[in-house]
């Protein structure tokens, strides 16, 4: 299929663009296969380049012969285009609709995007499981890297290489895989260097109604326990939901078969509930009424903050089991691709200072989200403005980023990256020129040859000029475990995402820049002072007469 077939009117002159908190721009609107471009052809006005894949939904309005298209983006921005001529407007609207909902991955922009920057380090090779395992090997010899999933046959959503207990062979793993939902057998997620405890993740065991058991599964997870020690299983579903899952072939680890494990049930919401929550929240944020009560009720009714709190609480629980109780932990819900990953990745942010650096956080997103098989393409197909019936969409990753932001806000000096890095990941998860978040699993990414045909987001991020922009000027490496407060009073709405387009951030940005400027100048002066001190010291040793009494 050719994009040209979908573009009936490729350009229209005299289009007026309205954007929040920016002056209106009049110019020429052009549609290309992947972009909506508006250019005034004047040097001093910013052009608009919008990826079609960033468009969540559009609305058309007509007043006389002028039509308006309201474009609602996945990054939650809303813009308006006033287009002279009814036919042009209709053509543009239908083109946008068609181009923004292309299903075929290989037609997406990342396959056409050629980097305009020099790739210093190919991001596709930056975070390979082998490298992560090398780090692990330096700390413990109790684990091995298994190739049992080399051809993705044991678990389609796992990467080819996974870390498992050394004493468990591949045959056992194959058997365990048949006992876990979609083959997601327990694998290592995190090794806590301080006390050698581990966090594993999996999907639910397929016990079914008659309480099927699997000796190999029991053996596998028991292999991670120290003699005489108990472990914790954190099930992200309530006990009721877990019970009900039995009827559909799922289930949970019973006390009888897993006597060394204590099960804790938490109530993390599932996809469709989260998506509704996001839609309600964004609707509340865009509410133009001036009523404080209405805003607070709507915020409450959206339940978003409750989800943030529950996820953070569960992550703290997992971290507490490991760090304070000195116990190993297995985390799972139903499929092990959503709430499970929220918990395991946030627990690592809390426990492991390495995850709080820019590179470490990229590694975490790679390991715990991309390679762990979070179905990004399904989850991020639509955002809060979509009118189409939600299928697999859910803001699971956005909630994770929101939770990280909450911790970052509470520990402003402990993260090497700033809020803008989190916002950037949110944007790219939903629409991007890079291939990183395409596909639903490593298997799909390999099939699409993404590493060969697209550029990795990390290739772009890990360049000095980008890193500088994303660095937190207040960062001071903190080797401690950081326990966030999860009291509802301590959790804030993430304004940087949800109110980003509803408030003028000019003053806040200026203040931030000013702060960065001061900090940089401070460093510069400190260096200067140090140089002068060194010179003075040198002069003093060279010429004893200079020494002051």
């Amino acid at each position, binding site marked *: 299929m050719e994009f040209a077939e979908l573009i009936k009117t490729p350009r229209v002159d005299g289009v007026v663009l309205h954007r929040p908190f920016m002056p209106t721009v009049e110019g020429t609107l052009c549609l290309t296969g992947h972009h909506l471009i508006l250019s005034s052809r004047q040097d001093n006005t910013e052009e608009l380049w919008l990826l079609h894949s960033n468009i969540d939904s559009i609305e058309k309005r007509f007043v006389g012969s002028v039509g308006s298209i309201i474009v609602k983006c996945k990054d939650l921005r809303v813009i308006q285009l006033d287009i002279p001529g009814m036919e042009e407007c209709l053509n543009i609207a239908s083109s946008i609709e068609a181009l923004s909902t292309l299903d075929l991955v290989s037609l997406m922009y990342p396959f056409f995007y050629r980097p305009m920057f020099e790739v210093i380090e190919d991001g596709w090779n930056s975070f390979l499981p082998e490298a992560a395992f090398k780090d692990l090997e330096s700390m413990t010899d109790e684990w091995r890297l298994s190739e049992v999933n080399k051809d993705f046959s044991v678990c389609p959503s796992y990467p080819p290489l996974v870390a498992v207990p050394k004493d468990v062979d591949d045959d056992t793993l194959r058997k365990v895989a048949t006992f876990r939902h979609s083959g997601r057998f327990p694998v290592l997620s995190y090794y806590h260097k301080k006390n050698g405890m581990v966090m594993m993740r999996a999907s639910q065991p397929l016990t079914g109604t008659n309480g099927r058991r699997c000796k190999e599964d029991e053996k596998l997870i028991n292999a991670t326990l120290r003699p005489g020690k108990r472990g914790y299983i954190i099930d992200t579903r309530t006990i009721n939901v877990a019970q009900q899952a039995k009827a559909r072939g799922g289930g949970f680890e019973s006390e009888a078969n897993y006597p060394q494990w204590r099960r804790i049930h938490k109530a993390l919401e599932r996809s469709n509930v989260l998506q509704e929550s996001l839609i309600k929240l964004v609707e509340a944020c865009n509410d133009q009424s001036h009523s*404080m009560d*209405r805003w607070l009720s709507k915020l409450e009714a959206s339940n978003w903050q409750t989800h943030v*709190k529950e996820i953070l609480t569960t992550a703290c629980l997992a971290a507490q089991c490991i760090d304070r109780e000195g116990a190993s932990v297995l985390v799972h819900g139903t499929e092990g691709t959503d709430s499970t990953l929220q918990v395991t990745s946030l627990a690592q942010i809390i426990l492991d200072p390495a995850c709080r650096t820019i590179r470490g956080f990229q590694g975490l997103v790679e390991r715990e989200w991309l390679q762990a098989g979070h179905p990004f393409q399904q989850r991020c197909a639509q955002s809060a403005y979509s009118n189409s019936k939600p299928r697999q969409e859910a803001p699971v990753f956005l909630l994770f980023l929101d939770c990280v932001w909450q911790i970052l806000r509470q*520990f402003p000096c402990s993260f090497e990256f700033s809020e803008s890095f989190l916002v950037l990941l949110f944007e790219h998860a939903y629409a991007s020129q890079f291939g990183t978040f395409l596909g639903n699993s490593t298997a799909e990414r390999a099939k699409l040859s993404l590493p060969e045909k697209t550029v990795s987001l990390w290739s772009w991020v890990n360049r000095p000029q980008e890193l500088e922009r994303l660095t937190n000027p*207040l960062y001071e490496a903190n080797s401690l475990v950081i326990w966030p407060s999860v009291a509802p009073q301590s959790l804030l709405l993430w304004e940087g995402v949800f109110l980003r387009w*509803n408030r003028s951030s000019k*003053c806040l940005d200026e203040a931030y820049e000013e702060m960065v400027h*001061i900090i940089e100048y401070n460093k510069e002066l400190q260096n200067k002072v140090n140089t002068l001190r060194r010179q003075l010291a040198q002069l003093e040793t060279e010429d004893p007469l200079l020494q002051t009494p």
Partner: protein
Amino acid sequence: MEFSDHIKTANVEDVVLRQPLHPPSRGTVCITGHHLLFSDREEGSSRQVLLLLRNIDAIEKRISGSSGTITIKCKDLRVLHLDIPGMEQCLNIAHSIETLSCLDSVSEMYPFFYRPPDLSLHNQWGLSSPEKHYSQIKELHDKWRLSTVNSDYSLCPSYPPAVIVPKSTDDDLLKKVAKFRQGGRFPVLCYYHRKNGMVIMRSSQPLTGANRKRCREDEHLLQAMIDGSDKGYIIDTRSSQQAQQARMTGGGFESKSSYSHWKRLHRQMERGKALQESLIKLVEACGDESHNMDRWLSKLENSKWLSHVQTALSTAGLLAECVERDGHSVLVHGSEGTDSTLLISTLAQLIMDPCCRTLEGFLALLEREWVQAGHPFQQRCAHSAYSHARLQQESPVFLLMLDCVWQVWRQFPLALGFSEALLLRLANEVYASNYGTFLCNSHQERCALGVTENTHCLFQALLRPMERDYYSNPLYEPTELAIWPSVHPQSLQLWRGFFLRWTEHTRQLEEAQEEIRNMVIEWGKLALSDALSMNT
């Protein structure tokens, strides 16, 4: 009366103090006439906690066996627990605190006893006065004059001796106008907008009563205020229904027929008891430990505090818009003209006038618009959110103003010359202080008690070099422009720095702010030494 009469047990050893953000510690408690002193006797530390008894809002005692626990709830919202061995000692301590923390006599309060070595009572008192204000604004002198008609407080007990009024109105006229306004608060100038020569005046409600009484002199005074302009605005901080009802109790509003050049705008602002109840509910919500997000958000909503913040800011915005954008003079009043009137005139000045946004300018603004303008601090701040005492005149109007200023500060982090720390300090000082600034209800009362002669001035103390550094905004970049705060509900936030300051998590944020501040101070020093090294 001697303080010692109220102190049966002055000293108790072996007391355990539990307070937020610190581990429990064991030590000695002393009660003096004005303070509760806890000193830690443990090895290697010599921590002391000195608490003004005036800062204590409520106490609770719990006796179990032979020992007891006193829970102390402070007006700065901190909650402390003292575990005291010995029932009698516990009861004695509790009794002393209860009595001494709410002594009524102003002249026995601590500011009259506070004598720090680095301050002299001969230092200048205060930063601003109507006289100084008048002399600073030369543009005013053509059409406005300084009247000393109230020099003996006979016209208006809550006004200062000197006020700024239109030149064309003589003192006899003012005497008549004062009779027509509640509490004698006739319209006086509080702000002159240099950009267009428009002014803000404030007063109390006119006493039209049910018979729609008129006062020619009042009409004349208002006319003189908009001399040469086609119209002026009156912002009434009550709804028009409330203003109508006020006529039944002798009050009223400026009717269209008698004040034909004036356009009245009504904005309903919450006052008095409702505001105090809102604060109590909010603080209760902030202390809720149920860990339930829905509960927290509903309680926050139910407290209505943020709605009050929103109304105050948007009414102030309206006032500023009338003056700055529409180019008209405005008269502001509600009923008494001592609360919501001052709240919005202060905020409007902060929005429009860059001079009010420096540390010194802001303090001078507070002195003019609150202290001298007769906000009854003693009545309004007698108790805070924890008190069990029956509410009398308490109302956190000043605190609401500080909260609104904080919202502005948050939205314009570069535009204000002072920091959040200043707002927090003021929020504490207004309820319990070493200084005399917020004592009494009016200028007259302060004069009668010799406050300026016998106490130190907070505003002066805040401008000493060390304090000035601490309370300045390191990011301050003056702007001449008006700063229009967004009053969308989504843009307004709970002032966590104040309402949640005693919870664990705000500590990290404070550390970060401290870090930035240190860096800026260090920067100043380095820049200086850099300059020196270049010179030599």
